[in-house]
């Protein structure tokens, strides 16, 4: 039995690195992305809409960062739980760690524009406001910058650690590396929890410096967990349609990813509702300000779209085993969730820019595509060079036989 599986493995993994055609566009893509971002910046400055540009920039930044954070979470959880089913697709998640480096560079404009983005940078306002004065020990630019640097140092070093060891194992076949990864993933998860939470507090929640919600970080995490499973489903399907994993990646793998996607959609709704209900019930002015902005006027439409599109539709759609085992249906829902995740991030950030709804316009589109191009190029940079599958993971065999074992 073992022999036949190895043959299968050799047959389908004959070409594990993406062929040149796809990878070659990476540099060009990155240039297009940078071009798009500069163009939208120049256009918005000439139109006197720097603030609008910065807010859409932050939205796109947080969206793509949440995907990479989700990947970090996914990999560590697989190691901590010693999961073997996911080994086949783990490398895809490891490649999704690549954008951390470019996102670190792309965070510089946010820092430069912090004076426009964040109310708490206004010295005159702080002097006249007791609440902001009290918070200024934490919310000030030098400390903000230092924290930002710290988050990215943590994410980049842990990503390099996870990816590098995994790549070394491809050559050395050392099973001890798996043990090291499993051992180190637990502390990385703790670091991950704190950095993700405080990142969302600093970069997103502080847009409304008077308001705070201790569950905000968990909400952001829930969104990124939903989107990583959606992204893994979508990417696996794309790679499979390109001819990789064919015959190896079984519907059972998709089914498992689908189950996690479904579970985290419920988790997301649970957290979102927990945040809402306590604030709604207490009805205290300084707490309700967040939802007041989003539930009155035109933003209430977006809130409704999120409730229905981010929870009710995928909940009913993915609840049955039937739906999770139909690849096309599952991929459709995955793409849908990736779009809804963008709406969610948009809903978190943009109401702080404008009281009325801002329909995604040219600025949003160009920043999103700019980020998309850069992030994808960083992803392709790794995909071109390394094997799509951790070929020498000691438990890969189990992942391949997952369909029989489950």
């Amino acid at each position, binding site marked *: 039995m073992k022999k036949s599986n190895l043959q299968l493995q050799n047959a389908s993994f004959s070409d594990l690195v993406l062929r040149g055609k796809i990878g070659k566009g990476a540099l060009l893509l990155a240039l297009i992305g940078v071009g798009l971002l500069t163009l939208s910046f120049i256009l918005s400055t000439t139109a006197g809409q720097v603030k609008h540009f910065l807010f859409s920039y932050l939205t796109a930044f947080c969206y793509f960062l949440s995907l990479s954070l989700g990947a970090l979470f996914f990999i560590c959880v697989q190691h901590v739980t010693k999961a073997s089913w996911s080994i086949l697709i783990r490398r895809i998640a490891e490649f999704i760690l690549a954008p951390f480096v470019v996102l670190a560079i792309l965070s510089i404009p946010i820092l430069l524009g912090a004076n426009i983005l964040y109310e708490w940078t206004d010295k005159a306002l702080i002097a006249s406001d007791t609440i902001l004065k009290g918070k200024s020990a934490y919310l000030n630019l030098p400390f903000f910058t230092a924290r930002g640097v710290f988050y990215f140092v943590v994410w980049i070093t842990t990503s390099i650690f996870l990816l590098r060891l995994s790549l070394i194992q491809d050559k050395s076949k050392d099973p001890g590396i798996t043990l090291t990864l499993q051992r180190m993933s637990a502390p990385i998860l703790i670091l991950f929890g704190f950095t993700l939470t405080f990142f969302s507090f600093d970069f997103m929640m502080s847009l409304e410096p008077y308001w705070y919600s201790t569950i905000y970080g968990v909400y952001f995490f829930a969104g990124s967990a939903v989107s990583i499973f959606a992204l893994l489903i979508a990417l696996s399907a794309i790679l499979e349609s390109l001819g990789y994993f064919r015959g190896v990646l079984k519907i059972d793998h998709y089914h498992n990813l689908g189950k996690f996607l479904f579970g985290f959609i419920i988790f997301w709704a649970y957290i979102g*509702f927990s945040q809402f*209900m306590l604030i*709604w*019930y207490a*009805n205290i002015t300084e707490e309700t300000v967040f939802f007041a902005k989003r539930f009155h006027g035109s933003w209430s439409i977006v809130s409704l779209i999120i409730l229905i599109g981010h929870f009710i539709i995928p909940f009913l759609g993915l609840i*049955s*085993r039937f739906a999770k085992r139909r690849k096309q249906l599952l991929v459709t829902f995955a793409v849908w969730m990736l779009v809804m995740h963008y709406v969610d991030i948009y809903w978190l950030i943009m109401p702080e820019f404008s009281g009325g709804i801002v329909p995604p316009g040219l600025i949003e589109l160009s920043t999103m595509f700019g980020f998309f191009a850069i992030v994808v190029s960083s992803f392709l940079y790794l995909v071109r060079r390394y094997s799509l599958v951790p070929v020498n993971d000691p438990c890969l065999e189990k992942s391949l036989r997952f*369909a029989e*074992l*489950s």
Partner: protein
Amino acid sequence: MSNSKKVSLSIQEAQVERPVCLLAEFESVAGIIRATKAIKQVGFRHFDVYTPFPIHEISGLERMRVTIFRWFIFLSGLSGATVALLLQWYTNAFNYPFLVSGKPYFSLPANIPITFELTILFSALGTFLGILFFGGLPRFAHPVYRSNVFKRVTNDRFFISIDATEPAFDPIKTKDALLSLGASTVDEIYGFPPSTYLLPKGLPYTLLILVAIAIVPLANIALIRSKSSPVPRLSIIPDMDKQQKLKAQAESTLFIDGRAMRLPVAGTIARGELREDDHFYRGKINGDWATTFPLTISEEFIKRGQNRFEIYCATCHGLDGYGHGSTAKRAEELEQATWVPPSNLHDATVRARQVGHIFNTITNGIRNMPAYGSQIPVLDRWAIVAYVRALQRSQRAKLEDVSLEMRKELEARRKG
């Protein structure tokens, strides 16, 4: 190792009766996996595999048949959600409308946690009861337990039982096939003799009697609740029920006047409660309502009055005194029949009222308005009166009432 016990029971019966299943014993995991795969391949469906521990290869082979069971669970969950919503609507919005911090009687956000819990509870109970029902449980015994070798199933042996309901079942051929698959023994398992299906003779009667006895206390409670009795109630701990002291309103045999409590000496006044200043404490001078304040009015005093007014009075009379406070508005919304609208403080009658009279109204209440004497200290009541006067004047202010600077500004505004 055939079932010797059965054979010894009655040879004739055994020959007529077909076995209900064949039980094959295997000694290794590999053996049972190979055999299960083979049986599956032949297309057998009516068979069961028993192992001391879960074997993933086998649970993968034996994919569960898709039944309506999942819809049963889904409907249980839905009925849980419905019951929860109905329950909350009935108790909180229909049977006994209960206002919680100004929220609507029936509001979805508040109901979601309960709805969520009941959905989970009903789905869980539905699953549990559904498994019992669809699995034909509880079942007191299964024929496979008649086999002696089967006892090792929780220890170190693996079994496959093939039901006689299987279309291709043939006691001899199937047995041979199982043996050829590597079974160490194959037992023919017969159903229980008919006598074992019967309940013990006394059981139905015992149950009936127990049920009848169980009704007695309930019937007794119902009986007692429906009629009155001259007999005093049972006192289990009498000295707790009847203590040697006189309770409120009880008659004393010790004092001539029969009171349990002594009255204070006539004319006794508690410290600080003398209150002989009629003007200050009751707003009266020589029996008539006072038209003057018993103290000098300062701006600070009126500000204090405003503060108290906004706390105690504004909910009904409104911040502006026109009688449109939030409580009044809410009462109008609900069309409360017994509600008397609060006075408009700018009415001619209220404006003509002496300050002493207004003070008295605050102290003792009027019509629907409760007495605030016990809640608001005397000085604060006077401050409120002063503020009410200021409020009344503010609505009919003349230009002369305003300071010189303001006057200039107002005139400038009128021109501009």
